[in-house]
């Protein structure tokens, strides 16, 4: 039933002459919940930015819903990795989330719908009470939630989250993944995360990103697969209920 939503063919990208990703091919079906895992510097963020169209591939093609990323970018929701930039910028939580509703018609005030959508997004992350606060007065974890709300306010078909839980406590993480699971009923979701233990019961597939990409459609990594040399810094990852705990992979102690 499901159609491929993302098709990447022989994609290569290098940054200042050093290859970050080489010859990556990847097909992802609609409404998958994909976890990007892999070591630091393995190219996870670069891959996301290529999929978003913020970076241009050196070689290869990316088709998302049959189009180039730049053409379809308005249907993406994106949570960047770094949410602590521009620390002194005077802007309210509401105005940050409203960016998800861009572009606006010129001159016209924001429509009621835009505000309602932004408030709904904030509410789903339990941040509505902070809507009039300056974003710089919030903690890292709260800021993270505001940026997730901004991505949700776009009402995207595909959601990209680059380490969305880096600043969030464990209860917040569980809540966030439960919310993503709910959203996954209608949206395709990509998440970069090192929370492999928590993730395992929510995702539908795993992509190990380390210069190349190995995509596992069944969201299950076996010892054999690791032995074949996927080099993922994963100790255990399992899918479904009840959780399956896999043995720690030998020689993978970091």
């Amino acid at each position, binding site marked *: 039933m499901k159609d491929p939503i993302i098709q990447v063919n022989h994609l290569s990208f290098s940054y200042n002459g050093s290859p970050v990703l080489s010859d990556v091919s990847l097909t992802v079906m609609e409404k998958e919940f994909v976890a990007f895992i892999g070591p630091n510097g393995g190219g996870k963020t670069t891959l996301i930015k290529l999929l978003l169209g913020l970076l241009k591939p050196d070689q290869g093609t990316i088709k998302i819903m049959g189009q180039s990323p730049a053409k379809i970018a308005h249907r993406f929701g994106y949570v960047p990795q770094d949410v602590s930039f521009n620390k002194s*910028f005077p802007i309210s939580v509401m105005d940050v989330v409203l960016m998800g509703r861009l572009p606006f018609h010129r001159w016209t005030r924001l429509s009621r719908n835009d505000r309602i959508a932004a408030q709904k997004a904030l509410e789903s992350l339990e941040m509505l009470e902070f809507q009039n606060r300056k974003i710089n007065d919030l903690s890292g974890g709260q800021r993270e939630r505001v940026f997730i709300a901004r991505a949700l306010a776009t009402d995207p078909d595909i959601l990209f989250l680059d380490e969305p839980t880096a600043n969030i406590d464990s209860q917040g993480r569980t809540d966030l993944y439960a919310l993503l699971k709910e959203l996954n009923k209608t949206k395709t979701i990509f998440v970069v995360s090192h929370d492999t233990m928590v993730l395992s019961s929510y995702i539908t597939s795993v992509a190990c990103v380390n210069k190349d990409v190995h995509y596992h459609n069944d969201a299950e990594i076996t010892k054999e697969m690791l032995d074949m040399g996927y080099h993922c810094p994963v100790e255990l990852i399992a899918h479904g209920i009840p959780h399956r705990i896999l043995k720690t992979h030998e020689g993978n102690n970091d």
Partner: protein
Amino acid sequence: MIDALHFEFMRNALIAGCFASLICGVIGSFVVVNRLVFLAGGIAHAAFGGIGLAFFLGIPYLLGTLGVSLMAAMIMTAVVLNNKDRADTFIGILWAIGMATGIILLDMTPGYNVNLMSYLFGSILAVPGSDLWWMLGLSVFTLFSTGFFYRDLLAISYDDEFARLRGVPVNLIYFLFIGLVAVSIVIIIRVVGLILVIALLTIPPYIAEKYSNSLAQMMGLSTLLAVLFNFSGLWVAYTYNLTSGATIILMAAAAFFISMIFDALFLKKPPTLISNEQNN
């Protein structure tokens, strides 16, 4: 001070100060939040090349200066958009070339000795009425563009990657507003001088940023602060017979340090380290 208002030059100076404050408050806020202060400095000094060119070719001041500074602004913008990391070096080079070219062109201009000081510190007390119309036009255009693109400007300034994803024409708006920075600098140099332009573009927005909840508030508060510095500087200059451009800058500088001391004493901000922050 009140009796000074009987003089036309004083009335013109105050009106010019208001327009310059408005333009600098709005455009300066854009410059400060986008960290383009160095770029604005580069444009202002490259404009000096334009002053030299205008005198050398015998063309009107505005034509030569606008042409050169707009060209410099567009080149600098292209560099900033393509290579953010090294842009500052390149701007520094254009900055120096602009100044050097300006001086040499003035050297080569026969029989005319321009008072360079007036371009560095301006002569707000000698503003002709025609310049006020230029400033009025620029003020209206600046307010219009900022109002029209406010939400886009906000998104680009805060998070240009996200703005790009949402289909905001990031490059176009960047070029437009940096072009506006260039035009503002050229028109205001004539009134308050090159050094005061940079001071008015940066000091009021920097102070205002900390006390504002939005970019629009920051623009408004910077404008008010700039008016305050202009008027108080003019009053000191008039009373003690000093160079007005310099007194206005020193007023702004004094406010800058007072606000820093005030913040240190009364605004107890949490430390800026975020790595250990907790929720709630």
